[in-house]
């Protein structure tokens, strides 16, 4: 007999689906089947069961091979590395729980590190733009129940957030959207004819890198002013057509992704997208939402925000929080050799940073905490495997619309395996000893382990 765990949260993407059902063996050690998840979500649960999984920390040897060490040794190495560094970079945080993030921040405060999360290569541009011009936003539930015009700009949810369309944005029937996708107009803007664009009512395949121009052209069109014949590779007739659809929405939303945040212009592209949304609010009700990637990158921004006032790139090396993207962001720090140790948890810069930054990590004292083998773990001095958050241990996570949910534990981790909150708490306690201070008001290791 097997038992089924219901209302499970998927710990992969920012859609944070909360309707998964996972069938587990009676002794609670094996996942047999995953229902309702998309292919990526299902793989995440099933891969946690892989027979060849690494279950103990490994230290890099002189010849580049790895040798198993105990968790105690790993904790000591990590604590010594952080305590001895002048300015360690503590990067990642987007694939772990808010509870673990909070313990990590305590360590950063004690050792004077820089805390940065994956927004730095993802929606950091958006966070800067939001600080510049604000953001008119809403929840995914409101979109399901109200939105009749949905724009996807520089994002491809069919691939990156596979259930977004079916759960929230296009297909579901909601309170005021009883006709489902038949009652919704879908506009997609992208330099490729993506699988998402193939489903759209209006697909605008713009010239790569011309998002700012097209956004500005829309603002001109809303005002009924004249435009050049072609802007960003799109004819002015089509721009006016799209502008009309947007203005005539009852409730509209723009979802945007890496196509705008990683393209030249970056935060200025988002400024302009937000101003398009603001303009549209003179005609109707419009919102804008960032398609956040990792399942808890939003949570990392929230925890950093309420503890230090900044959503990423927070430099604690001077004893108070500083934030200056371009200076305190991971890639700039690495490029300029401004950090002397790297601690990575819940992310894989080895695969997702430009190689010039990865080269710097490989040359520094480095620790990677990750359940998987990744390019980061294979260039770090120490790899600490941990239990999968959302599969083998619960914890708080934030969806892309800033709503928190509690992820669930569905199976036991392999025997003797630590969770990241436990590992971090032990490192924090040891760092406190090395630095001669116990952080005030923090829960003890025992409390975190019991939680």
């Amino acid at each position, binding site marked *: 007999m097997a038992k089924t765990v219901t209302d499970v949260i998927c710990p992969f993407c920012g859609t944070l689906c909360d309707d998964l059902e996972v069938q587990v063996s009676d002794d609670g050690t094996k996942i047999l089947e995953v229902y309702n998840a998309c292919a990526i979500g299902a*793989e995440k649960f099933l891969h946690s069961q892989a027979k060849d999984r690494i279950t103990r920390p490994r230290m890099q040897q002189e010849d580049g091979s790895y040798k198993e060490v105990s968790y105690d040794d790993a904790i000591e190495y990590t604590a010594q590395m952080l305590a001895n560094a002048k300015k360690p970079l503590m990067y990642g945080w987007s694939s772990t729980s808010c509870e673990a993030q909070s313990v990590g921040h305590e360590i950063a405060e004690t050792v004077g590190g820089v805390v940065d999360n994956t927004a730095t290569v993802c929606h950091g541009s958006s966070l800067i733009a939001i600080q510049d011009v604000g953001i008119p936003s809403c929840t995914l539930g409101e979109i399901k129940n109200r939105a009749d015009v949905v724009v996807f700009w520089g994002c491809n949810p069919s691939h990156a957030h596979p259930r977004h369309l079916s759960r929230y944005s296009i297909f579901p029937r909601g309170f005021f959207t009883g006709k489902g996708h038949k009652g919704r107009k879908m506009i997609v803007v992208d330099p490729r004819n993506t699988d998402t664009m193939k489903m759209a009512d209006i697909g605008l395949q713009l010239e790569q890198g011309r998002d700012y121009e097209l956004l500005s052209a829309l603002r001109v069109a809303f005002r009924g002013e004249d435009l050049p014949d072609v802007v960003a590779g799109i004819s002015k007739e089509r721009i006016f057509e799209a502008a009309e659809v947007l203005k005539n929405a009852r409730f509209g939303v723009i979802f945007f992704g890496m196509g705008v945040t990683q393209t030249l212009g970056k935060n200025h592209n988002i400024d302009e997208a937000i101003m398009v949304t603001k303009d549209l609010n003179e005609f109707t009700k419009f919102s804008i939402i960032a398609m956040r990637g990792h399942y808890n990158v939003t949570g990392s921004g929230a925890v950093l925000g309420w503890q230090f006032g900044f959503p990423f790139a927070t430099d604690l090396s001077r004893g108070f929080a500083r934030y200056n993207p371009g200076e305190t962001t991971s890639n700039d720090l690495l490029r300029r050799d401004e950090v002397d140790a790297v601690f990575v948890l819940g992310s894989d810069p080895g695969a997702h940073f*430009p190689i010039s930054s990865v080269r710097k990590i490989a040359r520094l004292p480095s620790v990677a905490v990750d359940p998987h083998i990744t390019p980061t773990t294979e260039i770090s001095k120490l790899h600490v495997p941990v239990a999968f958050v959302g599969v083998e241990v619960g914890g708080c996570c934030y969806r892309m619309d800033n709503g928190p949910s509690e992820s669930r534990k569905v199976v036991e981790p392999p025997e003797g395996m630590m969770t990241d909150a436990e590992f971090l708490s032990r490192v924090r306690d040891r760092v406190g000893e090395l630095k001669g201070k116990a952080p005030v008001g923090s829960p003890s290791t025992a409390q975190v382990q019991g939680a």
Partner: protein
Amino acid sequence: MADSISLNLISGRTIQQGVAMEGGKEKPAYTDACGIIEIDPADFKRLGVYRNTNVRVTSDHGTVVVKAIEATQGPHPGLAYIPMGPWANAVVNPNTYGMGMPTFKGTPIQVSIATNEPVLSSVKLVQKLVKE
């Protein structure tokens, strides 16, 4: 047919990239999903190679060998796509221009035929490149 062609490179997620990444980045499936470059049929013609030939991609920032496949979400002549991962990041423009974000999209690249050069696995590729 040309020795090499110039294209504009972007990268991003694909569902195969997501599944393969969760299945293990050290596994061959991840190389199959991300060690590729998607090129428009018109650009295949200009370069004069068959589909599924290995090619060398070079930018001002690095060089990498990947397998050229036909664009799955095209047409997009002049534009090339490498799914996000270490192969794309071997050649992308790392400059943040003072705001923190590397310029992952819109890197000018040269693509040339490299039939006999292998596509390295993610771990091997990164371990090799960090030593350079």
